[in-house]
């Protein structure tokens, strides 16, 4: 090579290396920005939401005295229904702070514990009536304002806007006696939604999501896979199948809220399916995930080398046998990966469910596919819209739970793909 050319090459080399370095820098910058966003999101959400897993409890001496709640005969169910169960807690508080006598102050004192405490007493005594007349020392859930204050006070940043100075004084006293404490918030995992933040739990939404997703999977996976197999292996390649292909891709790009409108217009108005139930949510979500499953399943089928099909056909397998014995098993991991990713999307979907009434305020935990229900992301939407400050940490906690599920699902998908990936 001539000296001249070598010089030229060397000169151009510097430029080439420089642009390569720049390219790498840009790439790294992108990765760092992405990671930073993820870390920021998690730190923010976890710091806001972790509080919800613990709640403020107040220790009270409860005496199960029928008189205290105005009941004459503990076997009269009618009377028990209308009894003032909350009085057990009120009485115990008054015993704790005998100096409180004014009406207004008494009310403030009563407000230290959650309004829901009475229901717990009722449930407790209905279950074991032999407790009547006995005494028990219990940790009773505090009111949400107390909870918010106590947690912020422990963090040296007290938020006292919604409390009176007396209430703050009482909490101080309780604290110095060791009668107020943070404990694991079992209610959060045992309850459905509630207007009282301290009573609100995630279980209703979790179960609702579970029912909805199970049905979604049952509806969309078999249908999606069969459609993919038909299109890929059996359908003739002509302009009709081209048209179908284009439309499936279009369908995958349709904004999810449109599927909600479809559900509203067709399934509720035309077919008369009741609103707010998992069956309806699942139909809508299945329609939404179907194109994704078809597309990923087709990709999985395409990745099975044609030589395997030829081998099977060559020894006399029919087309159906070839598909069933070879193509399907080999593409199943890919299909499952697609299904899991589709399900993860469906789990996080909110907009279409708003349209079909799964945004209703539902206290009861759904017991089946046809009970009114809400789902995790909609629960988040509902809570974030609530004015009480205590809902902020509930919202964040629900987001943590939703994200954990999504991450687990994505990990399973990646694991499956890695594990069952075949090298030809």
């Amino acid at each position, binding site marked *: 090579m001539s000296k001249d050319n070598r010089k030229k090459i060397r000169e151009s080399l510097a430029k080439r290396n420089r642009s390569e370095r720049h390219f790498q820098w840009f790439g790294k910058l992108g990765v760092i920005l992405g990671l930073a966003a993820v870390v920021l999101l998690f730190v923010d959400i976890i710091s806001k939401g972790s509080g919800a897993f613990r709640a403020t409890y107040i220790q009270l001496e409860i005496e199960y005295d029928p008189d205290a709640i105005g009941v004459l005969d503990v076997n009269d169910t009618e009377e028990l229904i209308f009894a003032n169960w909350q009085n057990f807690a009120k009485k115990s508080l008054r015993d704790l702070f005998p100096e409180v006598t004014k009406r207004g102050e008494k009310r403030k004192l009563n407000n230290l514990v959650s309004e829901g405490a009475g229901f717990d007493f009722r449930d407790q005594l209905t279950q074991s009536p032999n407790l009547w007349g006995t005494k028990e020392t219990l940790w009773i859930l505090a009111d949400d304002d107390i909870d918010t204050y106590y947690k912020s006070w422990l963090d040296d940043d007290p938020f006292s806007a919604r409390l009176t100075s007396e209430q703050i004084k009482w909490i101080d006293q309780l604290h110095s006696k060791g009668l107020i404490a943070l404990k694991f918030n079992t209610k959060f995992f045992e309850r459905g939604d509630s207007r009282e933040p301290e009573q609100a739990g995630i279980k209703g939404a979790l179960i609702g999501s579970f029912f909805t997703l199970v049905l979604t999977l049952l509806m969309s996976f078999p249908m999606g896979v069969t459609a993919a197999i038909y299109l890929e292996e059996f359908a003739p390649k002509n302009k009709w199948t081209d048209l179908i292909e284009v439309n499936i891709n279009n369908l995958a790009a349709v904004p999810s809220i449109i599927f909600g409108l479809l559900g509203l217009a067709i399934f509720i108005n035309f077919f008369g399916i009741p609103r707010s139930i998992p069956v309806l949510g699942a139909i809508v979500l299945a329609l939404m995930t179907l194109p994704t499953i078809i597309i990923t399943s087709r990709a999985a089928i395409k990745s099975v080398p044609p030589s395997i099909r030829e*081998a099977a056909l060559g020894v006399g397998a029919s087309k159906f046998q070839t598909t069933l014995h070879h193509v399907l098993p080999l593409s199943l991991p890919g299909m499952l990966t697609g299904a899991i990713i589709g399900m993860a999307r469906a789990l996080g979907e909110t907009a279409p469910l708003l349209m079909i009434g799964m945004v209703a305020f539902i206290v009861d935990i759904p017991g089946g596919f046809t009970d009114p229900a809400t789902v995790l992301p909609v629960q988040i939407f509902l809570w974030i819209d609530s004015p009480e400050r205590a809902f902020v940490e509930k919202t964040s906690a629900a987001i943590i739970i939703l994200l954990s599920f999504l991450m687990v699902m994505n990990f399973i998908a990646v694991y499956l793909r890695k594990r069952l990936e075949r090298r030809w």
Partner: protein
Amino acid sequence: MSNSKLSQSISTDGADPKISEQVLDVEKDLLSMESYSTIGNNLVEDAKMSVRNVNVFYGDKQAIFDVHMDIKKNEVIAMIGPSGCGKSTFLRTLNRMNDTIDSCVVSGEVTMDGENLYDPKLDVVELRARVGMVFQKPNPFPKSIFENVAYGPRLHGLADSKVDLDELVENSLKKAGLWEEAKDRLHQPGTGLSGGQQQRLCIARAIAVEPEVILMDEPCSALDPIATARIEELIEELSQNFTIAIVTHSMQQAARVSHRTAYFHLGKLIEVNPTETVFTMPEHKLTEAYITGRFG
């Protein structure tokens, strides 16, 4: 067959420019010809398969033109020709493998023992059990060696019991010369074998259903010379029980294993003759040009 000497006589030295010009003219003629006739003994008396008037199209493009040819019982017939001349396409008409390609249309008549293979009433599943195929790239199923061989017999219900099936698998592997190497690892994946072993596994899989004819499409093109030699030996052994049609891009291989050789050019069957004749005194100018290395 003592064709080994023959293979040495195939010269591939530089082309005489004058001859090349002539060849180009002949090729031009061939392209423009409406009809042509195959030179040599393309038709025989005791034919196992007969091909008459066969044309194959991929959409608008014609890949095979008006082929007439017989395949004799228990012979090894080699198909040679420049790449893209339609050898594979022709071979695949013999077990209707072309049916799997949507755009492919076959016209004409192919018979086996007098039975028309393109009869709409005929079931291709049965046909493919009778006419087995070995492909260019070894394509074992990603299953165990045993499962690979047992697949065909199971499909067609050829074995009555587990013992029967075991025996059938063993015999097939023996015939394919793979038994010694595979007997201790029958339940390990077939894809774990070497390339040559995989191809012998594919042969075992094909013969397990006891076909009458075996089609092989460049079965050695993905293999090293030693593996190739083993397959060639195997072909010679198999020819005692099966009729074999083999496509090859190696003239030496055609010379070593086949009894007759068919030369294809641009989709036309130019010449069919005993292998010895084709490689020592080809009748057609194009055949001569090909075997002396003037086309790739």
